[in-house]
């Protein structure tokens, strides 16, 4: 693979996607320290929000230690070069949240819908453009739409004003050829000025490989997280990707060793549990399940004495999409009831 001379923007998600494994409890000081470290390492874009985006604070997804506004106002003034983005999922976050984020100094908004539901983002995309924000969109759970379907959804987002559209592998299910097919068709379909991005999860350990495939097929913005801090088995480990890209002659503007230090010295000590490919997170990637279901399935598994693997596989069978955390407990209870019946018969 020859990527020499290409330029990509690496976007850190450890302070947003990383909120999932931290149950949205990252302290303000940790946020400031990590963001300053990323800034000093030359990471151009840093996402800061509740793991489920603006307005994600809820019983359903978890209440964060601080509000989005507190985090954004607390961190942004400390940054010298890096810009800050915020995630927004229509149906949860609203245009009011968008305005709030912009007032806090957020320059890039990332508006995310399920890979078949682009049209619910129209009002948010148009408003973000009107506000002059760098307007990026996500087509989440991209494995649940075929390349042609994904490209046509991307085209819709472009028509509303999206400037960069992501193929978002929320379940960490895609393999490199799947990424190539999707990104390539998006590239062929969209206007040449519209950028393409890729957001990976490392559930099948494909984060780096998939990111390379995406770059080769035309993606110019790639998400990752320092030390991989993100939902499921984490995001593409950003320091690893930066190192690989440097060896391949791709320009990222990042100081690899400074980024490695952020991962090792700041992120790793913050972890409550290892964020890695293990039985449960591997199941997410294998079964095509939304990565942030992981901790919910583990908690429900414990409560109802069933295996999180079984819960996640059932969530995949039910074709649950991002945000359906409320279904997990019911699935766990149903499995527990079925198990009890089975053992009663036996």
């Amino acid at each position, binding site marked *: 693979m020859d990527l020499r001379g290409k330029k990509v923007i690496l976007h850190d998600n450890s302070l947003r996607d990383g909120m999932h494994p931290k149950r949205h409890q990252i302290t303000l000081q940790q946020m400031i320290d990590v963001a300053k470290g990323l800034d000093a390492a030359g990471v151009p874009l840093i996402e800061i929000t509740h793991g489920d985006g603006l307005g994600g604070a809820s019983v359903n997804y978890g209440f964060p230690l601080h509000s989005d506004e507190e985090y954004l106002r607390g961190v942004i003034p400390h940054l010298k070069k890096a810009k800050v983005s915020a995630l927004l999922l229509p149906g949860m976050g609203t245009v009011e949240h968008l305005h709030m984020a912009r007032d806090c100094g957020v320059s890039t908004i990332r508006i995310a819908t399920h890979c078949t539901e682009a049209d619910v983002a129209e009002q948010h995309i148009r408003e973000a453009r009107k506000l002059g924000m760098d307007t990026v969109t996500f087509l989440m759970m991209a494995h649940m739409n075929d390349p042609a379907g994904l490209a046509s959804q991307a085209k819709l987002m472009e028509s509303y004003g999206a400037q960069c559209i992501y193929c978002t592998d929320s379940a960490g299910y895609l393999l490199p050829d799947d990424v190539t097919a999707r990104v390539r068709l998006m590239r062929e379909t969209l206007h040449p000025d519209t950028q393409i991005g890729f957001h990976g999860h490392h559930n099948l350990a494909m984060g780096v490989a998939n990111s390379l495939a995406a770059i080769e097929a035309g993606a110019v913005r790639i998400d990752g997280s320092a030390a991989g801090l993100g939902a499921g088995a984490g995001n593409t480990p950003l320091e690893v990707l930066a190192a690989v890209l440097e060896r391949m002659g791709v320009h990222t503007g990042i100081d690899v060793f400074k980024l490695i230090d952020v991962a090792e010295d700041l992120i790793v000590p913050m972890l409550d549990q290892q964020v890695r490919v293990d039985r449960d997170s591997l199941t997410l990637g294998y079964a095509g399940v939304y990565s942030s279901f992981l901790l919910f399935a583990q908690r429900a598994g414990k409560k109802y004495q069933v295996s999180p693997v079984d819960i996640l596989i059932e969530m995949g069978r039910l074709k649950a999409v991002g945000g*359906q955390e409320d279904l997990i407990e019911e699935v766990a209870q149903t499995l527990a009831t079925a198990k009890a019946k089975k053992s009663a018969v036996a």
Partner: protein
Amino acid sequence: MPHINVALIGSGNIGTDLLIKALRSTCIKPVWMVGVDPESDGLKRAQSLGLKTTAAGLEGLLPHLVTDHIQIAFDATSAYVHAEHAPILRAHGVVAIDLTPAAIGPFCVPPVNLAEHVGKGEMNVNMVTCGGQATIPIVAAVSRVQPVDYAEIVATVASRSAGPGTRKNIDEFTRTTAHGIERVGGAKKGKAIIILNPAEPPLIMRDTIHCLTETTPDQAKITASILAMMKEVQKYVPGYRLKHGPVFDGNRVSVSFEVEGLGDYLPVYAGNLDIMTAAALRTAEMIAQEMLTGKFNPIRSA
């Protein structure tokens, strides 16, 4: 049998489902269906069912209001369009049952507060949202037992059941539902989340209600209250079923329902249509009864 003539404005999913239900009513009679797209399935169906139709929007209906004795209009367009319609209907002495999230008139969630609307002579009543109709009764069932500091609802609906109006203005759904949770449900603070799921075959509407009570929840009383409320809703939406819970955890009360529709227009998975249209119809029938018994005589000012 004496009846009140009504018009349906909006020929999308909600308007068409409502039409089919309204045809079964004994006290209201659907006479006009108003759309903007002559090719819409809703208008064609209305025509085949013997209604007068226009594809010229509300403008197309206005000349016929008096001659056809239209006294109630259901508006199932969109929040923005209804904001334009509301003053026009009012000036013509037509009572508006608003099925958009415009929330111009007071909220009506029949099993909770229909009785409060009796005798008020309101010219505009708002039906909150489908998610609101499916969840606010349960929030009210908890808050009538003990104070609720916070209530949050998650409505998951099949992609196919969410029409373009809902999609274009999804913020209005979350905003209006949250307000309804507070004003009608009785929670101090409300939050609403909507999720669209494109799975095939389409999934049945599913609603989760989380309440945080001010003090430790009285489990027995809350459970009984929720079950009693479910029966009230089942009177007009038979497919409203408890799926999970109530689960109690500290001050949290969580419960999930499934809403299966009657399949009048879209198939049974689209319970989100039924719960909205059945509630609107119930509200219209209450108003029609008041008109028929001479207790409510709206006056034309235009």
